[in-house]
């Protein structure tokens, strides 16, 4: 029996929060990261690197604006290239933030509390990165406002039957709703920062943003109703956004795109890559700011389980695509496209994406992997890469080999494609570092409400 004990110990579920915190220590611990006057040196290093990458992004975009879209690798037949690959990748990453903040709230998953704030921030910044790409891709980005319906001197309207216009509405609605969700979630914590700030500038800025929040019971009551309703609205919204993104492909008639499995398979892929990104960010943040007491192994384990489940849904999607293409549809073009995707000129990318998205994550079946921070960190990065490859294979392999062999062509990103892509990661990280420095990374009031002392014991 003695040798079985360690195994039993391993089975104990780690807590959502380390014991021993009080209302005051929770407030102190989280708000001190923001209110300290000494910015840690590591922050400067991280911000510096991110900002340098962001500058590279601006350089690449400036070249694009001056010389035109020809600096990218896109041409006929592959007209979509990196811009759309990156757009879908980023917007997919954003979806985990909404999932964590809205869907897990509705499902009463308490463990979401310490990760929802920065997951929502991640959503916002990922949507910002995503939103840039279709605009750059327009060719004449200064006319981007033509996408919106407004009374104009040309007296024409956007084509409302086009999925590309649906995309405009879906992504802008998503950006606005995510921003509001994030901001109203911040209001009570901004009030905490206002009340604890010592500098005049901090007091004024946090004071303005907190809008005079004072924690009134009447305010909380309406606030809670609003938060629940917003979560209820964000849940179908997040599903609809990636569905509409998949319509950009599925509504066309191109083999490999024209399929009804795209909407659910895109949504699952989005959640998959988003959770991978939350994990990639959460692991260094909890280490650097010593937040292991709030973001515990329980969170990492739960996220790895969600990733495992979503990875299997994505695997089902891949399997079903092959089944439809080879065995079921009987369409020679679909058949060719399926074989071409696996064994054609981009076959190596397909093999890599299967390795990254399907095979590697299976390691998470083992409890040992789920208990190892390093293993989870590495796997989450591999999944991020895999999901990028997936979008690359979808976009490029179908476009490069359409119905007529005479119109086939190959595609590769140019140096400006790569600079824009890596640069947009710089934009994302720059915003994230600013967020970590100036706003509370973890929702202070929600963590307070989770403490045992917050429970009301009825006396009658």
């Amino acid at each position, binding site marked *: 029996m003695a040798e079985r004990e360690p195994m039993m110990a391993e089975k104990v579920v780690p807590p959502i929060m380390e014991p021993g915190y*009080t*209302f*005051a220590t929770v*407030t102190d611990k989280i708000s001190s990261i923001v209110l300290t006057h000494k910015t840690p040196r590591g922050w400067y290093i991280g911000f510096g690197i991110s900002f340098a990458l962001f500058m590279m992004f601006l350089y690449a975009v400036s070249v694009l604006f001056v010389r035109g879209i020809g600096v990218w690798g896109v041409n006929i037949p592959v007209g979509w290239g990196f811009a759309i690959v990156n757009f879908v990748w980023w917007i997919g990453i954003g979806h985990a933030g909404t999932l964590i903040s809205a869907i897990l709230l509705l499902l009463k998953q308490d463990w979401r509390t310490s990760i929802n704030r920065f997951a929502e921030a991640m959503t916002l910044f990922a949507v910002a990165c995503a939103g840039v790409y279709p605009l750059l891709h327009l060719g004449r980005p200064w006319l981007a406002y033509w996408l919106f*319906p407004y009374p104009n001197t040309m*007296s024409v*309207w956007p084509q*409302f*039957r086009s*999925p590309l*216009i*649906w995309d405009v*509405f*879906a992504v802008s*609605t998503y950006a*606005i*709703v995510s921003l*509001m*969700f994030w901001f*109203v979630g911040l209001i*009570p914590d901004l*009030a*905490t920062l*206002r*009340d*604890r700030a010592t500098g005049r500038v901090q007091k004024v800025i946090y*004071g303005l943003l907190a*809008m*005079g*929040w*004072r*924690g*009134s*019971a*009447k*305010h*909380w*009551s*309406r*606030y*809670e*109703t*609003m938060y629940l*309703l*917003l979560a209820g*609205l*964000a849940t*179908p*919204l997040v599903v*609809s956004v990636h569905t*509409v993104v998949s*319509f950009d492909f599925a509504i066309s008639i191109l083999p490999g795109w024209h399929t009804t499995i795209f909407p659910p398979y895109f949504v699952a892929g989005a959640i998959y890559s988003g959770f991978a990104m939350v994990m990639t960010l959460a692991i260094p943040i909890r280490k650097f700011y010593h937040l292991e007491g709030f973001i515990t192994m329980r969170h990492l384990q739960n996220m790895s389980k969600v990733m495992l489940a979503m990875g299997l849904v994505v695997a089902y999607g891949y399997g079903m695509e092959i089944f439809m293409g080879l065995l079921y549809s009987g369409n020679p073009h679909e058949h060719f496209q399926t074989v071409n995707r696996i064994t054609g000129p981009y076959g190596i990318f397909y093999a890599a994406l299967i390795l990254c998205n399907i095979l590697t994550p299976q390691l998470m079946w083992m409890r040992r992997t789920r208990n190892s921070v390093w293993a989870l960190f590495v796997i989450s990065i591999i999944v991020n890469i895999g999901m990028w490859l997936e979008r690359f294979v979808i976009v490029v392999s179908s476009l490069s080999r359409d119905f007529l062999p005479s119109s086939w062509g190959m595609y590769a990103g140019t140096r400006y494609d790569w600079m824009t892509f890596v640069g947009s990661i710089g934009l994302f990280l720059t915003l994230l570092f600013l967020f970590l420095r100036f706003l509370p990374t973890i929702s202070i*009031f929600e963590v*307070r*409400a989770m403490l045992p*002392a*917050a429970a*009301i*014991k009825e*006396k009658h």
Partner: protein
Amino acid sequence: MKQIAPPLYGLLAEFDTPNELVRAARATYAAGYRRIDAFTPFPIEELSEAIGFAQNKLALIVLIGGILGGLFGFGLQYWASAITYPINVGGRPTNSWPAFIPITFEMTVLFAALAAVLGMLALNGLPQPYHPAFNVPRFALASNDRFFLMIAKADPLFTHQGTHEFLKSLNPREVSDIDE
């Protein structure tokens, strides 16, 4: 020159735990006070009913927002595609309503979400840069780890002496005057 004391707004009692506050709020309501409010660092479900705050109108506002958004979204597309700029493409219907559903849905969600956030702020009277409670220095702890109960002077039962003693009887940590 004689210093004029600022007028009184109400009295504020400070408690250490949410339990004490909820109990005190119930007692205050039972004693007949109605112009009362409580301030806490996190939402406490029992508290709003303890101070006699009936459920709010927010859900209705959100529903109306959503309906208006849906009508606007569909109306915009119908008007643009079928009325003001109809194009006949091979005899296909100009009111191709199934293709209008995604945008109608997005507009429904957008308007409902805007109604939820703006409705919450409007009903709560925010942004409100000034409130008399902020004049009490210890009130800063309402966003940290203390729990406050307030009785406004506007309450018909309010007397400075009597209400002060009543609040004292609820075993608070401290009772302070709120200046206007």
